[in-house]
């Protein structure tokens, strides 16, 4: 490790000199790029919202990525620091260190990588790793990877790696391969054909020693997937199927049943109009390189959501839906239409209307021959248990060159017991149903000064009751913005819990540098995955964020 660090340091020094030298001598010694982010938070105690005492008072998360490239060669390193880790993140992110380092070389259709890398096969149902620092997720692979393109249109990948777990690696060894053929690239005559065809297949196997004194566990756990994309003109049909062999784990409750998943997405799009129809089945598809891992740790695959990812505060944060790896049957329809400009409804600039309907139910389950197998389930068997419903419509209109509005209405139904607590046995909260209305206004006072305002209301009689939210954001380009946001739980049946969660923030941007200060309250939350629940405590305090890229 030390040698590697030294090597990277040498490369970095060389490259820094290189950048200066390049201009002088005209010799390419490569380039260094990177990005940096540091968040500091000062914590106040706040008994009203339950914000706990933080002994350190100030905590911070930070990272810096450095990438060196020269010709076909790329090397990179990421330093991470958690002193101590911000509340809401897993405390196993502790201290500082090199969390990611790699070198890669590409030539003659072959790309070789050693060290940490991110990879995805298809939609990721067999294998996907990614880094999301703001959520504390990094399941990068650490090992070797070969990507080979023998002829244009044929892509193959082969890899062996362990996965990152905080500042160490998980116990499982992941062996995986993927092949994809794009016939429109492979066959010259098809290059500009209306008919498009791509076919892919992937396989993975995880080795983890069985030393468990209670169960006899499979030490090699395999998963396979096949995918196909067919297009004709404006139509597109994507389908992917994945199968996981027996892999008892903490998340599935140590059952030996194999897992299956199917996703089908059909779409049609033309100027001003598009339709997307999707359907999905997931059955016992959690796949990790440690059978005892829970929450977001050491996931080897990724199960895509088939529900709209909302960005409006109340729709995104109060009842957010997360894919249920143990089982779901889902559908989604998404239609967008633009009313032409110059018409009565379209006005001078046109009006955009989008309708999105999605629904998720649990899969049907019936008793298996024995408990350890888990359950039986017909492939198209849908349970009556609703997990989630989201019917929303959005109308966006530009009134004149200074004023733009967006109106959203949403009906939702949310199974809090299963989605948040993975509690399949009893109904405590029931299905929470409600409505959300959002009005979003953007107004330009001048070329430099703009105002963004949002008014949101979530109406429900269940759980914590109704919420209102208001946002005012003033931007003075090119450098400044000031914002005030209030989330107000006005409908809470417990009067003392009708709390205002107010935050104010000021931001300054200069080129790639971004500074932001936020002061206020944040709500508590609970999330559970794989039989483990984590409480993200409420907080009250000042956050400073600095980020830049170069």
């Amino acid at each position: 490790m030390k040698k590697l660090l030294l090597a990277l340091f040498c490369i970095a020094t060389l490259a820094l000199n290189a950048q200066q030298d390049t201009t002088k001598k005209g010799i390419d010694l490569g380039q260094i790029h990177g990005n940096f982010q540091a968040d500091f938070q000062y914590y106040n105690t706040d008994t009203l919202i339950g914000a706990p005492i933080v002994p350190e008072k100030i905590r911070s998360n930070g990272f810096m990525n450095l990438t060196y490239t020269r010709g076909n060669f790329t090397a990179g390193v990421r330093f991470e620091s958690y002193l101590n880790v911000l509340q809401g993140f897993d405390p196993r992110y502790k201290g500082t260190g090199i969390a990611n380092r790699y070198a890669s070389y590409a030539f003659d259709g072959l790309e070789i990588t050693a060290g940490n890398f991110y990879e995805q096969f298809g939609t990721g149902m067999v294998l996907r790793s990614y880094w999301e620092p703001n959520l504390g997720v990094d399941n990068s692979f650490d090992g070797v990877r070969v990507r080979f393109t023998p002829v244009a249109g044929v892509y193959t990948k082969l890899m062996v790696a362990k996965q990152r777990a905080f500042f160490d690696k998980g116990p499982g060894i992941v062996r995986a391969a993927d092949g994809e053929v794009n016939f429109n690239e492979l066959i010259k005559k098809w290059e500009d054909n209306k008919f498009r065809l791509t076919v892919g297949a992937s396989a993975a196997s995880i080795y983890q020693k069985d030393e468990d004194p209670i169960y006899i566990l499979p030490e090699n756990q395999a998963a396979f997937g096949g995918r196909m994309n067919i297009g004709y003109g404006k139509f597109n049909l994507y389908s992917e199927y994945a199968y996981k062999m027996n892999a008892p784990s903490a998340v599935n409750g140590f059952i030996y049943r194999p897992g299956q998943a199917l996703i089908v997405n059909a779409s049609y799009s033309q100027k001003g109009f598009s339709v997307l129809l999707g359907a999905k089945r997931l059955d016992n598809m959690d796949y990790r390189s440690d059978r005892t891992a829970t929450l977001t740790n050491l996931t080897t695959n990724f199960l895509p959501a088939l529900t709209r990812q909302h960005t409006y505060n109340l729709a995104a944060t109060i009842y957010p839906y997360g894919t249920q790896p143990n089982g779901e049957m889902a559908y989604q329809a998404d239609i967008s239409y633009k009313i032409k400009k110059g018409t009565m409804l379209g006005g001078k600039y046109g009006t955009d209307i989008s309708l999105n309907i999605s629904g998720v139910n649990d899969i049907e389950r019936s008793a298996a021959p024995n408990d350890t197998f888990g359950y039986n389930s017909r492939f198209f068997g849908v349970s009556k248990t609703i997990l989630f419903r989201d019917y929303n419509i959005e109308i966006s209109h530009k009134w004149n060159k200074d004023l733009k509005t967006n109106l959203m209405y949403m009906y939702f139904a949310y199974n809090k017991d299963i989605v948040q607590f993975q509690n399949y046995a009893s109904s405590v909260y029931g299905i929470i149903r409600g409505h959300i209305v959002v009005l979003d206004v953007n107004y330009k006072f001048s070329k430099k000064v703009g105002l963004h305002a949002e008014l949101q209301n979530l109406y429900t009689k269940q759980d914590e009751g109704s919420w209102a939210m208001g946002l005012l954001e003033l931007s003075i380009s090119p450098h400044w913005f000031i914002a005030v946001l209030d989330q107000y739980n006005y409908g809470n049946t417990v009067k003392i819990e009708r709390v205002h969660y107010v935050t104010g923030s000021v931001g300054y941007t200069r080129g790639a540098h971004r500074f932001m200060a936020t002061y206020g309250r944040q709500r508590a939350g609970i999330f559970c995955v794989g039989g483990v629940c984590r409480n993200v405590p409420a907080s009250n305090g000042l956050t400073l964020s600095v980020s830049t890229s170069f």
Partner: protein
Amino acid sequence: MKKFLPLVAAVLLFAACDKIEGPYSEKPTGNGNDTGAVRRILIEDFTGQKCGNCPRAAETIESLHNIYGAQIVSYGVHAGFFAEPNVAGSKFLTDYRTPVGDELDQFFGNSAAGLPNGMVNRVQNGGNYIQSYSNWGTVLGQLINAAPDAKIKITNSYNAATRQVNTTVNTTILNDLSGNYKLCVYVTEDSIVSWQKDYQLSPQDIEFYTHRHLLRGSMNTTWGTAVGSGSLVAGDAFAGNFSMTLDAGWNDAHCSVVAYLYNTATKEVVQVEEKKITQ
């Protein structure tokens, strides 16, 4: 040949899968031997009365006790959000958190990492002490057959009238140990019947749940008292006297003294012993 590479790889990977057709459970192999000097392993189960998944961890401990018998010493530590008692209503009113448990939780980060979880002899797993309960058996299996490095003997004398317990702990070092060592002497109470949430049951709030072996407090603070000064040599013997007055609410017949010796740098437990107060 190059074109067949992915196909060959796929076939190889297909071969790399073990299908278990049953039986699915191991036969118990533990000898349950608790005579003489054996290595005993400490399992600390971080839990909460309102943690609906935590009964699964308690069941895991029971399964491991069935296999390894008295070679395992365990206690539950109620800590964090899911251990907070309710302030109103009729359920979850008792607070099972302790200053000792809170200090351990703060140091090791258990409740913030999501419950249930715990530690097995405080051995580290990739720089972290926290182990998922489904991993306890595996870690235990790696430790339990090693020869013991120390022997701990607990002698209790209990006055039922004053509820004072006086404890003598004799520690004998069996193998040379480098580093600094401390001894902790905790008190636990078994079979407390009280509320517990369980997501696998309906209704999920269980009024008469039996909480096994809960940590109640320490006779010599959270981090204990030093044993010797610096490295220990085989044959070294130490004796220490400790005492505590039991809380009026604790059932003395169910209380035990748990004493463990640990390395102050790694925090790893060398040996643990348990003895009932009224025995």
